[in-house]
């Protein structure tokens, strides 16, 4: 895949030197990321094999895989895993659907287009902690909240959203936060569409809907995939929204894995068990990511490799 082909005659030594020279610019970043992300993870691996309750300093000893057994039999851990999937999938998909809609609306010239686009991207820029507080204390507040006020004419203004539908509330806040991101991506895709193709389609008498499904959507596919990938990476690790809005509650009804592990670590203080949870999650994520990334990389890299 190298862009420049080197003559094979060079001696092995020069070849190696050249190789290092090429790699050199990569090394600082690589070493940095290795140190900061992988070293702590190794420590987590070690912790996961030990019993360590912060509040019982006398409890530290090797326990083998005992922590893993208790993690895999913890019903709430599984619940949190399900929540993570549910929150991530619904948030990313709904945000993407809304994003496509908004992008289509914004992809025409009209009075004040710049202003509307500015309005629409704002939720992505607002501090997520502020977003969570906004939804909790202003929108979903049971007595004075705007949502209930707007619903009251329809006789449904008496809902305690955060207690009764905690996962739904969290997803609403997250969708609101991530829709602009998707909108921007799709908009970029729409604007990169070649007008010729569209005009040719129109000349052939294709209906708007046909043009959208046959020409635009396939063109957008990569942008959508990228949005789903990046969105998932960030949403799956959501912590602040849950911390501020529901504290994972009521009970652990709205805890996702990051929040649940955080609770086990900083409210339960069982470091061994929470480390084991972390390892399980990492392994699970890697499996999922391997599949997803391979899929996505195939689409991205193949065209590019063909080009080089």
């Amino acid at each position, binding site marked *: 895949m190298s862009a420049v082909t080197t003559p094979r005659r060079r001696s092995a030594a020069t070849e190696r030197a050249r190789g290092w020279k090429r790699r050199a610019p990569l090394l*600082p970043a690589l*070493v*940095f990321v290795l*140190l900061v992300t992988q070293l702590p993870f190794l420590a987590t691996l070690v912790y996961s094999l030990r019993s360590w*309750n*912060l*509040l*019982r*300093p006398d409890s530290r000893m090797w326990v083998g895989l005992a922590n893993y057994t208790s993690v895999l039999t913890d*019903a709430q851990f599984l619940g949190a895993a399900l929540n993570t999937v549910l929150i991530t999938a619904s948030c990313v998909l709904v945000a993407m659907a809304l994003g496509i809609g908004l992008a289509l609306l914004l992809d025409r010239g009209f009075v004040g287009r710049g202003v509307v686009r500015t309005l629409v991207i704002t939720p992505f820029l607002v501090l997520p902690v502020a977003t969570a507080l906004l939804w909790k204390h202003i929108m979903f*507040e*049971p*007595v004075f909240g705007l949502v209930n006020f707007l619903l009251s004419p329809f006789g449904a203004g008496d809902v*305690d959203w*955060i*207690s*009764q539908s*905690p996962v739904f509330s969290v997803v609403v806040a997250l969708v609101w936060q991530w829709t602009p991101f998707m909108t921007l991506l799709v908009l970029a895709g729409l604007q990169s569409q070649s007008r010729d193709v569209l005009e040719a389609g129109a000349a052939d008498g294709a209906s708007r809907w046909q043009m959208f499904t046959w020409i635009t959507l396939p063109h957008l596919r990569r942008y959508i995939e990228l949005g789903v990938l990046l969105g998932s990476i960030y949403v799956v690790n959501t912590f602040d929204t849950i911390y501020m809005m*529901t*504290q*994972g*509650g*009521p*009970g*652990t*009804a709205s805890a996702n894995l990051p929040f649940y592990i955080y*609770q086990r670590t*900083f*409210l*339960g*203080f*069982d470091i061994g068990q929470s480390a084991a949870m972390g390892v399980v999650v990492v392994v699970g994520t890697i499996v999922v990511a391997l599949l997803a990334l391979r899929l996505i990389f195939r689409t991205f890299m193949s065209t590019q490799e063909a080009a080089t």
Partner: protein
Amino acid sequence: MRPIPRPGRPAALRLAAVAATGLLLTGCAGADTATTDGDDTRLVVAIVSNPQMQDAMSLESEFRKQHPGIEVDFVSLPENEARAKITTSVATGGGEFDAVMISNYETRQWAEYGWLENLQPRIDASEDYDARDFIPSIREDLSYEGDMYSVPFYGESSFVAYREDLFERAGVEMPENPTWDEIAELASELDGIEPGVSGICMRGLAGWGEMLSPFNSILHTFGGRWYDEDWNAELDSPEFQRAADFYVDLVREHGQPGAANSGFGDCLNHYAQGRAAMFYDSTSMVSTIEDDNASTVAGENGYAPAPVAETDYGGWLYTWTLGIPSTSEHPEEAWEFLEWMTDKDYVRLVGEEYGWQRVPPGNRLSTFEIPEYREAASDYADPMLRGIEEADPGDPGTRPVPYEGIGFLAIPEFQDLGTRVSQQLSAAIAGQVTTEEALAQSQEYARTVGETYRENER
């Protein structure tokens, strides 16, 4: 306003140099966190953001006046978050804090582990700091092997505040020593007496320091207990079930909206805004609900002792205290701050600056003898003092228990166990699970913990 405190310039320069040469950033690991600005010592104090602590934060300038060389930075967080941060830091020797707000739950355990400075020598060396003046039950609860390891900022028991105006309108009366059944009846009577007014307000937020405080006090007066003398978990016993049903039903039927997410602060707000007819919680509530600036119901309230069922006394005993982690680099200065914040003079300072309703109550006997306080607090001073003096953490219920504590169990595992059980009960209040389901799951957690104690005893 203070200038941006830290990082100091040397670290910045060093970092710029490090970055410029493209070296690994870990090179700046040596950049030390300078804890002094010039000659001033900076103390970092972690506290819980309850109203009385907020007052202390605003009065810090007074401390500065008396101790010009010491500056104090506060980290103030809601109870659950503060506890997570403080416990992690102290238990791992993180060393971020020079003084921390803890309670009678942590003090003895941490003293035993050597995580806290022994304050007794400093107390003894101080001439004016009258430690004998602390209410005996509280002093006792903060001492390990006869020495105090933290000093109380305020002490609390629990009681019921109720709106005399609403009671009058409804034509009902608060019994002198109410039972929980009577309270439940009153709650249903008063629910919705004005639009948006709930019958009672009680905590439903998960967290052992949140909803388990009121719940445990009810559990114990209902004759329930977490463990029998042999550490057999009893969360599935009929008594426990009855107490849980009572609590969950009362809050669900006549409690405030959003109950499953309301902690002490939210409840305080709710009642202080006139949105509940009764409020069962910490006696320290008076500093807020009797304060004209923070409350719309100041002067409208009556007070009744903690309701009971099977026992004669139903309140809990709790105290927010200040301790010095043994990792503090400035124990001397930290003590000066502790001394200031828990001294008799501080009580006077708050009384004169903010009004006598606002003083942190229930730590010192002498507070109850100040004439201005007696007058301002005539409605509740006696029930409060009685509540604190009568609470007996060693014998919380009707039957013997292997643990100490009323609102909590004084064992290290309780942070975890209590959090998990409170999550279950909070879910029951939200209607996500039934009380039976919540307790069945809770019993499992409690059984695991109990087993470790049984093994240790064998």
